[in-house]
């Protein structure tokens, strides 16, 4: 048929592509969904400078006009003057101002609801500004150095996590469902009656996944860089290699989950059972180091933790391949164990 080696393996891989791209839902979940999720979370958690404090000034007391001028001259505040206490109370109640300043000749009172976070913080800032304007000096000179660097924002932390989670999802669902479906339709049994190499059949899922992965990583990464300016400090080659090994490890787990179940429901339960702890523990949305120290060794051994840590190291810290060696080793062990076990346990009928 062809002079190239392994025509069976090549034909199987080709079938994987055809089946994948002829299934619109699969394309949506792998390519479109993570981008939608990243957009939503990116917008919700976008970094903003501290907001200006809305302050009300009780003008009816006519006291301390000098301090009012100082407050209005400070760009940190938006000052609204109130001529009567009724309108001032209304503005305070509905949150148009965070607090109301009631000046007297030799003192100042603040009116605020201390359960509102912006009111308590606003009081500190307003009080500080007024005290300075009234002549208070600082015993120690202080200053801030603002660091608003790409790579330290939430979206920068999140995107490698989402990428890892997506590689887990496509790796585990991708091979799992197709296999259980083929078993249910007795297609596996029919294939087992041919001289097809059985490890070729399983390997075709992993190899097809590697090609699809370039598109998957590419689309999520391009989106993150263009839409949010997420940094990619390490080499693109290293990033792809880390993604590939991670994807293979999850592909292996997918094959293992699909090795025996006869129904889609059975397989789906098993796959969720495999993925659930990693969704929670592996630090996709927040750092995994928040969990107690006792379970840290377990968390570190999970493939998603290893993948997400490695992706973050490469993207955010510019780590080299050697720098993520430990994580890659964890992933390689998962791949080898799950593939070998899947091949052994696999039910062809």
């Amino acid at each position, binding site marked *: 048929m062809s002079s190239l080696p392994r025509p069976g393996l090549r*034909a*199987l891989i080709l*079938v994987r592509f055809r089946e994948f791209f002829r299934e619109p839902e699969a394309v949506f979940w792998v390519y479109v969904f993570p981008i939608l999720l990243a957009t939503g979370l990116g917008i919700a958690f976008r970094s903003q400078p501290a907001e200006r404090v809305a302050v009300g000034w009780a003008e009816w007391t006519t006291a301390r006009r000098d301090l009012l001028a100082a407050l209005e001259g400070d760009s940190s505040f938006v000052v609204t003057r109130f001529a009567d206490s009724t309108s001032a109370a209304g503005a305070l109640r509905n949150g148009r101002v965070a607090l109301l300043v009631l000046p007297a000749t030799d003192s100042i009172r603040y009116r605020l609801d201390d359960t509102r976070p912006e009111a308590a913080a606003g009081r500190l800032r307003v009080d500080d500004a007024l005290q300075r304007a009234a002549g208070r000096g600082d015993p120690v000179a202080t200053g801030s150095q603002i660091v608003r660097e790409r790579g330290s924002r939430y979206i920068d932390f999140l995107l490698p996590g989402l990428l890892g989670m997506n590689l887990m999802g496509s790796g585990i669902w991708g091979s799992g469902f197709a296999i259980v479906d083929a078993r249910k339709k007795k*297609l596996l049994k*029919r294939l087992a009656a*041919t001289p*097809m190499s059985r490890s070729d059949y399983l390997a075709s899922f992993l190899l097809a996944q590697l090609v699809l992965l370039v598109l998957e990583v590419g689309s999520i990464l391009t989106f993150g860089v263009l839409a949010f300016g997420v940094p990619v400090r390490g080499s693109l080659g290293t990033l792809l290699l880390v993604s590939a090994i991670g994807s293979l490890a999850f592909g292996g787990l997918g094959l293992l989950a699909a090795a025996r179940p006869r129904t889609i429901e059975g397989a789906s339960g098993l796959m969720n059972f495999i993925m659930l702890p990693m969704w929670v523990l592996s630090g996709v949305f927040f750092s995994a180091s928040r969990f107690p120290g006792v379970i840290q060794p377990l968390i570190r051994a999970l493939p998603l933790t290893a993948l997400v840590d490695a992706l973050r190291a490469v993207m955010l810290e510019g780590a080299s391949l050697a720098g993520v060696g430990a994580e890659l080793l964890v992933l390689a062990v998962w791949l080898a164990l799950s593939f070998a076990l899947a091949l052994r346990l696999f039910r062809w009928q």
Partner: protein
Amino acid sequence: MTQFTAPPSPFPALRLRDLHKSYKDVRAVDGLDLEVAIGECFGLLGPNGAGKTTTIEICEGLNQPDAGVVEVLGLTWVKNADQLRRRIGVSLQETQFAEKLTVEETIGLFRSFYGTGPTIEKLLTQVQLADKRRGRVGQLSGGQRQRLALAIALVGEPELLFLDEPTTGLDPQSRRQLWELIAGFRSEGRTVILTTHYMEEAERLCDRVAIVDRGRMIALGTPRELISDLGAEQVIEVAVAEDNGAAQIVAVAGVVQAGVAGALDTRVEGSVLSLRVERLHQSLPSLLDVLRRERVQIEELRTHAPTLEDVFVALTGRHLRDE
């Protein structure tokens, strides 16, 4: 159609000795002995649950027997599995091929597992699916799917074909189309082993038939031999009016068996009396006399030449399938 003559072979296409296979509390195959010659078209005939599929899947290497000898083309699955898979072709009961792939792609996939074999083009023409080559498998009719399964069974140019119920669930026209195809395989020199519960199919296609029931072989021979072993020339079926009652019809059957000249045996199935007779012209007038004397109302009377179905009924007292 030229008759294929097999070269003398030192081994049969299939040899089963004392085959046993049980599932939990069911003895699916219970001591089966069988030998199928090279070039033969052989049928395993029996009702659902007779053990046909278990037997054929053991022969295909897809199932392991509990005990017994299985030799396919002189080889065993234990020692020569890879070689056997290259030399046999298989059509399973109810395989559903991937719906999203086209006919051509599906055949191409299976073709890629074999070193040698016919071109996809040739296979498509042979099973008359050339005009559907770019059609999705999911769009095919039942008959077209079965023909696709046959094309896939042929991709490795097999010497031996196993077809498990190749025409079950098809309309009569599709069934006849498949019969022509299968008859064609045999004349190409392949050995064909098929299972069926259609006696007409077995009579049409098979050189020899084994009738199996409850995991055991209860008859073996050419369809002609099996039917003539019945010793009956004709079968008479009389549908009796319902108001005669079940008890009475059994009593009538007794009288008929005793009183009708040349009646080999008489059975009751619902409201139908069924007689196997040697000579219709002797037995029929005598039957009508008896029924008139017993005041039995006849709804319908039919006669037919015996078939494998009658053989099965005579051997087991049951029908091959409930229609």
